[in-house]
């Protein structure tokens, strides 16, 4: 029953056909930010394991995390974390059945972009 007409169905046009839209860009960014957080996740995990292992291991991990490269990764990851968190909240709102109209979804899209940048600046200033 599931195999009826397999291989002879119209195909949906894909990314190269569609004009980029705010809703599609914010969706793709959600995926990119979520998966890119693996880098910061592994760095933080290494830092905690090194902390438990002792002063020498901690010194190595801490030096890497607080180096210019580590700080650059963390700066990007702070934005990614805020963006992904806000985008996740947006999904929870949608799943509850609210703000699904196109104009509302686009306003929400601009909302999470602007809020993620503001929260990143706030985090960097506070920390």
């Amino acid at each position: 029953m599931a195999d009826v007409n397999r291989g002879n169905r119209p195909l949906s046009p894909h990314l190269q056909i569609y004009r980029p839209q705010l809703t599609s860009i914010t969706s793709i960014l959600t995926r990119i930010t979520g998966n890119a957080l693996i880098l910061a996740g592994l760095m933080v995990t290494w830092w905690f394991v090194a902390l438990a292992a002792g002063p020498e291991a901690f010194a190595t991990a801490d030096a890497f995390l607080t180096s210019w490269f580590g700080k650059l990764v963390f700066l990007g990851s702070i934005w990614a974390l805020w963006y992904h968190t806000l985008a996740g909240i947006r999904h929870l709102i949608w799943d509850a059945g609210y703000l699904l109209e196109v104009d509302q979804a686009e306003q929400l899209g601009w909302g999470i972009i602007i809020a993620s940048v503001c929260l990143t600046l706030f985090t960097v200033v506070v920390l």
Partner: protein
Amino acid sequence: MAYLTDRKRVSGLGSAGAGTAHHWHQTLLSAALVVLVPLFLFTFGAIIGAPYEEVVAYYTRPWPALIALLTLTVGWVHFAKGVQVLIEDYVGGLARKMAIIATTCLSYAAALACVYALIRLAL
């Protein structure tokens, strides 16, 4: 002879064959992370860069340790489930299975490494 009707067989399962279980679990984890992520960001951010003894003392305290424990375990499981969807969208066949196994093992290993580290610090 099959006693199940076609509708009964497909009901609630969808194209993934597992229904909405994955999505629902991810929803649960994401709701928890909405609370945990800001707490972790500011407790972890406040101590990183401090000397070793100070950091050890900080993470033997219950609240910073519990926030780190919960965020890193829930976060890594959420990551494992999220990256699984990414792989399923772009990779097929044996490579898909291998990639899902590798990323799932990595995520759970990282989560439990954090748990082990924090328990050692607490004891």
